[in-house]
């Protein structure tokens, strides 16, 4: 086993726990903004058809990624370049969609500091978007290397490691798409949320006060 591949899987394992913590935080605070009466609320903002297209685009980028790798492993350099470019393009389209969504939400009055929904939503999807952006830059740099003749059949492990990262970004979105977008928000009314949320606000206020 190539050490780079092992190291990438170890990184993905740590990243899995990182996103696990972010998703857990989002789920714990789901529905709390409604209880506190501080809008805007998710059901007023989320556009399922638009996000479904974004999810489909990212899913198909995983296909183009394996086609790029498969082409390189078969010695088809031109094919690997085309599919690599297609993957970076689909990733960029996804990022454009996320930028549009963030802008729309902001214009509707939701920011990182508006309520618990805004804080947990932007943190979770923002970190995912950052991962996608890093992936796009990685793929474009590999495309640049390939165009200069530096990515040949015997270098396929280089592309495979990048592919592992890209597919991981895709599977994180599979989870986010279901938990953040598709599960209806009326299913998640928690008990005692207002008291807990107010305690958190008081706790935050005390910390801010202690720092002057």
């Amino acid at each position, binding site marked *: 086993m190539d050490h780079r591949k092992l190291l990438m899987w170890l990184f993905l394992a740590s990243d899995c726990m990182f996103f696990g913590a972010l998703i857990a935080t989002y*789920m714990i605070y789901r529905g709390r903004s409604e209880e506190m009466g501080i809008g805007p609320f998710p059901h007023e903002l989320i556009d399922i058809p638009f996000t479904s297209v974004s999810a489909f685009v990212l899913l198909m980028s995983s296909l183009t990624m394996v086609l790029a790798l498969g082409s390189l492993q078969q010695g088809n350099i031109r094919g690997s370049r085309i599919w690599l470019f297609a993957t970076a393009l689909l990733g960029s389209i996804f990022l454009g969609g996320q930028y549009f969504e963030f802008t729309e939400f902001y214009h509707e009055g939701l920011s990182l500091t508006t309520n618990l929904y805004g804080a947990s939503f932007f943190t979770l999807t923002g970190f995912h978007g950052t991962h996608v952006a890093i992936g796009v830059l990685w793929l474009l740099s590999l495309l640049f290397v390939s165009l200069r003749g530096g990515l040949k059949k015997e270098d396929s492990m280089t592309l495979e490691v990048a592919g592992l990262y890209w597919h991981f970004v895709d599977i994180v979105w599979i989870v986010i798409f279901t938990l953040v977008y598709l599960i209806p928000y009326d299913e998640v009314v928690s008990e005692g949320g207002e008291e807990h949320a107010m305690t958190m606000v008081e706790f935050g206020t005390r910390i801010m006060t202690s720092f002057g």
Partner: protein
Amino acid sequence: MVQKTGSMPALDEHHEAHHPSLRTYVNIAIFLAIITAVEVAIYYIESVESILVPALIILSAVKFLTVVGYFMHLKFDGRLLSFIFGAALIVAIAVYIAIDVMMDHKPVEWFFG
């Protein structure tokens, strides 16, 4: 560009032995697209409202495992990699359930009733 790196031959017995064909990858992508379409469709169907949450979670789990198993080749690679990623996944889920229970919240109840 080529970097000669160390390797562990003992763990390499399954590597690149059973990679799917490009046609298989296309079929898997069609399968994933269909599942995504089903997820979005049942979101709008009122008659399945009672089973919507478990259905969505199962469908997304199928997509997750398909991408990990086939596109990330975990199904065809050594068990060490499956152990590494599986252990991290279990820890992530366990932490979520633990926090969920401590916060007396509902998401665990959606699924288990």
